[in-house]
């Protein structure tokens, strides 16, 4: 880690030609990845990403320089390269005095993955693989992965902040292929948490994960293509929350709100969703995949109500966009690594539990689609156009779930779908994903109870 004395020297150097704010983000990470395929451990490798990013605010402009050379000489050189781009020369030659700040660790880790015997790590994958293969003889391939990352970060800025944290991520990925010789179908399950290896004792059963992936693949192999059209859709909880993430979450990030490139810009206090919708973005949930103690700007993480009974309450705001918008940052400044300047990002984002009965939603929907498991999706925040894939879907006929169907995708506009949610179930569950945006790929949870959308365009054959 970098000493406080070195950080203040580098920050002062960055501001020597002007600029209103300077920050160092230093990271020294240990990552481990292992893959099992065709029943054998195929890859296993440890890596050590390390580097630092120096950011200066030149008025409302962001200057960002990053390097792997974190020697004193390398950091001063990076500070010089950043300082050379500063145009606002007011307040030159400031001293930077740093005060160490500590935070309560609300996500304690018991057993870092790299401290666990290598064969025990491999056993997790063997368990998932074995369980997946017992589901059906038509399972022709299983790929399981273990990903572990221990990210040590240090954040210091010209306002005197000097702080750090260690984030420990552990994730299992299972992917199964079912084949009848001519056609292949896949199923996946990829649970993870901000925890160490104890994850596999307390939260995740690798066998269950493997079985779930295999069952989806086999189910889809027998499924006919969905008939395309507009229809009511019931979306199950867990990873189903990706619908809110794409259809609305990205459009509530300051990254798209501040420049007016969001369909929800200027809508604070307005009804943007049906009254049954309350949505939260929460970084404080212990051990959850999208949780943190502090964000990547050193701001303590928060629990943020985005939408309350359909009314827009908050945006997710990072420091720089906060300055531009005249609003306080919400602990939402995140980045994949030192190679990215931070910006506003989601954490654990979900539609809160509601009042509705899940059986009733299906019983009263007539003909439509039940999306038991969602795949990923994407959105254009400026227009709100979203799309996502249904990994495991079922036809609903006359209020009853009937046959599985494949190839379904859901499309629409965020503002429309939010207003068309007409049922919200009682139990909220979450799923894990990697979310990509301007500041790279960050771990996020999506979540919701089972919900119903009165009308959606379902794409298929």
């Amino acid at each position, binding site marked *: 880690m970098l000493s406080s004395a070195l950080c203040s020297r580098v920050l002062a150097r960055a501001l020597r030609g002007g600029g209103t704010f300077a920050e160092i983000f230093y990271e020294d990470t240990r990552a481990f990845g292992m893959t099992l395929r065709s029943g054998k451990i195929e890859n296993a490798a440890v890596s050590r990403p390390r580097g630092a990013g120096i950011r200066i605010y030149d008025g409302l402009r962001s200057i960002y320089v990053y390097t792997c050379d974190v020697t004193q000489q390398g950091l001063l050189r990076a500070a010089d390269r950043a300082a050379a781009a500063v145009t606002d020369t007011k307040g030159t030659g400031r001293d930077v005095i740093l005060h160490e700040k500590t935070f309560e660790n609300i996500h304690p880790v018991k057993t870092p993955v790299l401290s666990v015997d290598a064969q025990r790590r491999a056993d997790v994958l063997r368990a998932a693989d074995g369980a997946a293969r017992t589901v059906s003889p038509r399972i022709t391939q299983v790929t399981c992965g273990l990903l572990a990352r221990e990210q040590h970060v240090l954040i210091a800025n010209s306002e005197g902040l000097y702080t750090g944290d260690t984030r420990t991520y552990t994730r299992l990925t299972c992917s199964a292929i079912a084949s009848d010789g001519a056609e292949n179908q896949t199923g996946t399950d990829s649970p993870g948490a901000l925890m160490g290896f104890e994850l596999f004792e307390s939260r995740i059963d690798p066998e269950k994960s493997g079985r779930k992936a295999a069952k989806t693949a086999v189910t889809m192999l027998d499924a006919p293509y969905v008939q395309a059209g507009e229809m009511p859709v019931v979306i199950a909880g867990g990873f189903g929350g990706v619908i809110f993430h794409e259809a609305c979450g990205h459009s509530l990030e300051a990254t798209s709100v501040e420049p007016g490139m969001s369909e929800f810009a200027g809508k604070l206090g307005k009804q943007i969703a049906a009254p049954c919708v309350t949505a939260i973005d929460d970084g404080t949930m212990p051990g959850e995949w999208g949780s943190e103690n502090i964000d990547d700007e050193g701001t303590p993480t928060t629990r943020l109500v985005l939408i309350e009974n359909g009314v827009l309450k908050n945006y997710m705001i990072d420091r720089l966009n906060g300055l531009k918008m005249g609003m306080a940052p919400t602990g939402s400044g995140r980045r994949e690594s030192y190679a990215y300047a931070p910006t506003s990002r989601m954490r654990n984002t979900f539609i809160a539990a509601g009042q509705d009965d899940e059986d009733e939603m299906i019983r009263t929907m007539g003909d439509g689609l039940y999306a038991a498991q969602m795949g990923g999706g994407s959105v254009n925040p400026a227009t709100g156009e979203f799309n996502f*894939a249904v990994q495991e879907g079922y036809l609903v006929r006359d209020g009853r779930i009937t046959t599985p169907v494949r190839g379904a995708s859901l499309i629409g506009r965020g503002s429309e779908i939010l207003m068309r949610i007409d049922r919200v179930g009682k139990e909220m569950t979450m799923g894990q994903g990697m979310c990509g945006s301007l500041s790279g790929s960050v771990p996020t949870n999506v979540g919701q109870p089972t919900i119903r959308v009165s009308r959606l365009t379902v794409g298929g054959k």
Partner: protein
Amino acid sequence: MEKSFDLQMNEFAAKALDAAQAAGISPAEATVALSESFSVRVRAQKLEDYKVSDRIQLTLRGRWQGRIGTASTQAMDEESLALLIQGVKESAELIENDEQDDILPPDAQYGAVCNYSDVIDTISAEDKIALAMCIDERLCAADARISPDATVVSTASEVFSIKNTLGLDLSHSSNLIYAYASCLAREGEAAATGFKLLWGYALEDVSPFDVADGCVKDAVEKLGAGRLQSGARCVVIRSNAMADLLSTFSGVFSADNAQKGLSLLAGKEGTAIASPAVTLTDDPLMPWGMGSCPFDREGAATMTKNVIDGGVLHTLLHNRRTAAKAGVATTGNAAGAGRVAPSNLYIQPGQATLQDLLAHMGDGLLLTEVSGLHAGANPISGDFSLLARGFEVVDGEIQRAVEQFTVAGNFFALLQDIEAVGSDLLFEGSPIGSPSVAVKKLNIAGE
């Protein structure tokens, strides 16, 4: 003068190779990737973002107890040296697979290809900012309906070196400049985004007028888009959208995927898998190609080949391991970490202009954009169901913009259904490119 960072890393790599040998890891191989970039982003005549970077990574591979282990680092210190040696051993001990990428002496001969321009090194930061400002200014002045979103100008360079204890010692440098703009067009309730990217090896390759005008045109022509009725339609897939599809499904041409049951093209060599109009070429020796390099990630010489030749699958893409298993020679497509990947991969252009393709189609759809490829397209089954945009075509003429529909099909069926290939081959900021293609039918879900 201080030692440059890459020089320090190369010395560290040599040290790591020595340490590996001393620890009984033999043979051993070190690859060093150094990348540098500069990027500015402008909006409404304000410079909003200025970014400079250098990044370096050392990966050590070596044989230990019969298997080959891997570890990598971005830090050059004693701790990293220990992590590399320990990491390679642990990795080798964990791996159960008998078929591994070997470490081998150099090939007898390597092709020559250039995709490094000295000119790019001479473009100053001020010139790049001025270019971004110029694009943005033209966007601002374009049309009252247009708000500029972002204009980005960037240069990037990479040096990739690979060295092993069996005499292999190779290095390749590449660089490029790119500029892109995105904007939002609004008219009444209608909104649409526009995008245009150009890239190349000199300022002349990224004409500010072409970027700005292309971006505005892209947004404006989508305004007032209507919906489409659901049903099957004849489709012309525009070059950029076809390249996106090809890129998403490029993994099906990997012999590694085929041998692991992850590609439906396994064992299909010599059979017709596409329409006779389709010739698919992988050309790592393409002059000024974004993905050009005379050697692959395991140091094997690369070569130009047709993957599909007149509709017939000629070869899958191999590294040495997959080639040995299949009893053929490597195609020089090792991509590191055991993977196989294309270099510059593209469908060979035909004679017809886009207008000719539309005229030939008569009534149907010009598909210009597909989104959500990471979720709505499955390379293992070949199925796709994607949010799309385009234009309704009547009697060979563009009639109106259409949006909010999905296009669904199967990539393998699509290859068979290609009726004609256009002349407008495009690499839009990617080493995977395509001309526009006319296809028989795709399923549309709209209203």
